[in-house]
């Protein structure tokens, strides 16, 4: 009843984008069409909730585990048919619900946050509406090409929004240039991943002659296609996910993307954009699970990114940058969970061990749950930091401090978000993070590459410790301790339109983890019947998880580490009993420098692009100048030169001409005689 109208979910925000983009300032002078954008995304949110409720409860949809409807878009020779339509399963339902809900809150918040932007609010609200269209369209696409189109729409919107202040920045021209270059960087770096994704789609199209999910994920089709082609396609598609979700080694654009408005950062980090990469991997599980080595790579990339991004957040002074690094780190956790779970599923399929497949399915659940939890607490944290920036006018945490009395709501909601991301017991982040750690440890018992997961598990435990530390370092530096120079003239709590979304989000950031006990694992898990993958339809274990969690000794170790990290952060930045300067030797230690320089990642990119890119460019220039141009110039020189040479023969002297005539006659004569000889005459 509602499922048939799934196509409206991205369409309504898209229509709002057009209306706001063209007429925003006409019908809404104060907010540039903001209310229409909010209406569009609210409509999408309500509709997606209705669709999800119908999909989850109706028996009619439970058999294949998905609903799809599509029509032929175009056909091209060789039997390739490209369709367009929607594909709803529990993963798509989850994606569109949390993306539209969080986007709606961010839009409402934007009414207050972007208050001073004047006429440019029209542009802002049009672009964010398109951004949400991209994410919702991605979630319900029925084939890879349609998905890729929405994927690219998001890439475009991230470019436009990160560079929102590139024309004129409230803090001056330097910031405007910074925003412009950050936008370019985000666009170009994600483009690298997108090229890889596109190549992956070509491989899939070559192998399956179709890009429909129903065709590509069909067990019989997968079995009939060359195994190596599928592995190649998986690796290339994962390259796209790396670019979009800013994983190692394409992680450097996300911290720079902080140059945009804070609400845009919240959108990119929580509801859209970076979640698309995780979604893509989760969506492509049927082909990823063809080879355990692919998922091992996913897990390694995730684990390494989680660790390194967390280290970079340890000493950063910019409140938004700390959050950006924590996003990278949490995305790493999601990939780690998907990799570990998928690794077990792949091994289970190889050995025919159904228990192992069931165990791996939990990794999928953990990854998806962490994705949603992260969306809630990261949106909350970004909006809180936006609220702080809005009232203090700075992003530097050294200029804040002691704000908890002036901004009560922001400080409490941000505390909830920080506890959630740190994995404090019973907060949302705790459940999913613990599940991920447990999965990684579990995966280390299987297969020849099990020891890798043991290493990744140790990294993940250390990352959990660092996460708790840097989040509470941020919280204490902002809200406790002595007042910085900007907190003295802070103008109090933010307006209602900003604080109400914070309160709503903090409820979810605290409580969303409990869905694990109310059937979340039966909706988002991998079930395999006769080799056919499907999402959802498993058995809900409910409160058995509670027993699992609290009979596991490592849970207590993690909790102890988190509490220790919070205690250290409090001692260093609130009580001042430990001097932070002692650890970094006043910024002289090599580790401190390495972290400030982001482990030389930007330097590495520069070197690669200068040395390699410039080298290639020089080589190309050489070929162009000397071979392409050389051929043309050489030809013309040859013609001109021979002309010059011939013109020398034209002396104008009659005697010379006569001599040439004579010579010609002699040559002719000799030639004729020779010819006679050859012909046998004379």
């Amino acid at each position, binding site marked *: 009843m509602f499922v048939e109208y799934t196509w409206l979910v991205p369409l309504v925000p898209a229509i709002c984008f057009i209306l706001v983009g063209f007429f925003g300032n006409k019908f809404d002078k104060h907010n540039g069409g903001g209310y229409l954008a909010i209406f569009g995304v609210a409509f999408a949110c309500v509709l997606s909730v209705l669709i999800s409720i119908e999909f989850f409860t109706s028996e009619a949809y439970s058999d294949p585990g998905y609903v799809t409807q599509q029509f032929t878009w175009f056909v091209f020779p060789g039997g390739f048919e490209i369709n367009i339509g929607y594909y709803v399963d529990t993963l798509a339902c989850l994606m569109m619900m949390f993306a539209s809900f969080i986007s709606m809150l961010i839009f409402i918040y934007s009414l207050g946050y972007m208050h001073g932007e004047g006429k440019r609010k029209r542009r802002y609200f049009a672009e964010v509406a398109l951004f949400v269209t991209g994410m919702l369209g991605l979630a319900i696409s029925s084939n890879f090409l349609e998905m890729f189109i929405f994927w690219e729409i998001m890439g475009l919107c991230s470019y436009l929004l990160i560079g929102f202040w590139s024309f004129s920045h409230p803090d001056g021209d330097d910031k405007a240039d910074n925003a412009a270059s950050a936008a370019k960087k985000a666009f170009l770096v994600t483009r690298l991943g997108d090229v890889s994704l596109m190549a992956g789609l070509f491989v899939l199209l070559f192998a399956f002659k179709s890009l429909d999910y129903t065709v590509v994920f069909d067990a019989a089709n997968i079995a009939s296609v060359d195994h190596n082609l599928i592995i190649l396609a998986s690796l290339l598609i994962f390259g796209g996910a790396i670019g979009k979700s800013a994983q190692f080694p394409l992680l450097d654009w996300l911290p720079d993307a902080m140059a945009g408005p804070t609400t845009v950062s919240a959108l990119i980090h929580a509801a859209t954009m970076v979640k698309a990469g995780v979604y893509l991997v989760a969506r492509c599980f049927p082909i990823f699970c063809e080879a355990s080595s692919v998922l091992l790579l996913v897990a390694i990339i995730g684990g390494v990114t989680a660790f390194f991004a967390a280290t970079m957040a340890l000493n950063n002074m910019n409140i938004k940058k700390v959050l950006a690094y924590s996003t990278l780190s949490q995305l790493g956790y999601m990939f780690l969970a998907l990799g570990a779970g998928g690794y077990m599923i792949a091994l289970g399929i190889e050995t025919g061990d159904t228990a192992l497949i069931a165990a791996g399915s939990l990794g999928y659940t953990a990854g998806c749950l962490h994705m949603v939890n992260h969306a809630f607490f990261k949106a909350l944290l970004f909006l809180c930091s936006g609220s702080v920036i809005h009232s203090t006018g700075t992003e530097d945490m050294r200029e804040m401090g002691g704000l908890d009395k002036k901004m009560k709501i922001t400080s409490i909601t941000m505390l909830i978000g920080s506890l959630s991301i740190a994995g404090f017991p019973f907060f949302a982040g705790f459940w999913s993070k613990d599940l991920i750690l447990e999965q990684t440890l579990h995966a280390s018992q299987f297969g020849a590459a099990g020891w890798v997961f043991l290493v990744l598990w140790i990294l993940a435990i250390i990352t959990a410790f660092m996460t708790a530390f840097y989040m509470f370092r941020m919280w204490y530096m902002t809200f406790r301790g002595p007042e910085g120079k900007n907190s003295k003239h802070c103008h109090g709590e933010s307006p209602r339109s900003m604080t109400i979304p914070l309160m709503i989000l903090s409820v979810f950031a605290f409580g969303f983890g409990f869905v694990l006990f109310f059937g979340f694992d039966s909706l988002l898990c991998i079930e395999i019947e006769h080799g056919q993958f499907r999402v959802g339809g498993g058995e809900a274990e409910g409160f058995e998880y509670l027993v699992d969690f609290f009979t596991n000794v490592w849970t207590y170790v993690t909790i102890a580490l988190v509490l220790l990290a919070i205690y250290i952060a409090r001692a260093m930045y609130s009580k001042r009993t430990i001097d932070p300067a002692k650890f970094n030797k006043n910024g002289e230690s090599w580790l401190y420098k390495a972290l400030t320089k982001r482990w030389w990642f930007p330097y590495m990119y520069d070197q690669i692009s200068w040395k390699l890119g410039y080298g290639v460019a020089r080589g190309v220039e050489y070929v162009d100048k000397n071979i392409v141009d050389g051929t043309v110039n050489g030809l013309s020189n040859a013609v001109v030169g021979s002309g010059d040479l011939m*013109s020398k023969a*034209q*002396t*104008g*002297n*009659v*005697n010379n001409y*006569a*001599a040439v005539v*004579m010579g010609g006659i002699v040559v002719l004569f000799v030639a004729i005689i020779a010819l006679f000889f050859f012909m046998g005459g004379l």
Partner: protein
Amino acid sequence: MIPIEFFLAFAAILFAIGAYGVMTKSNTIIVLMCIELMLNAANINFIAFSAFLGDATGQVFVIMTISVAAAEVAVGIAILLNAYKIRKTTETDALTSMRW
């Protein structure tokens, strides 16, 4: 009777002298005269072969050639006179500006 080889050798010598003169002399009058020498060497060949073969066609050709040569010399001298009027010289070395 004088053998034909003598005529041919004589004509060849005459032709060579003419050709040498055309190629080396810078005085235009002498060049014209040398051209006449070469022409007449060819005429001698015609006559010699005509006598040798007992065929009068060669002699007819020679009369034709002589009349054409006369016309040709008249044209040549006329060009020379004009050139002399304009350039005050008839040396071939000085008359080199007529190329393209």
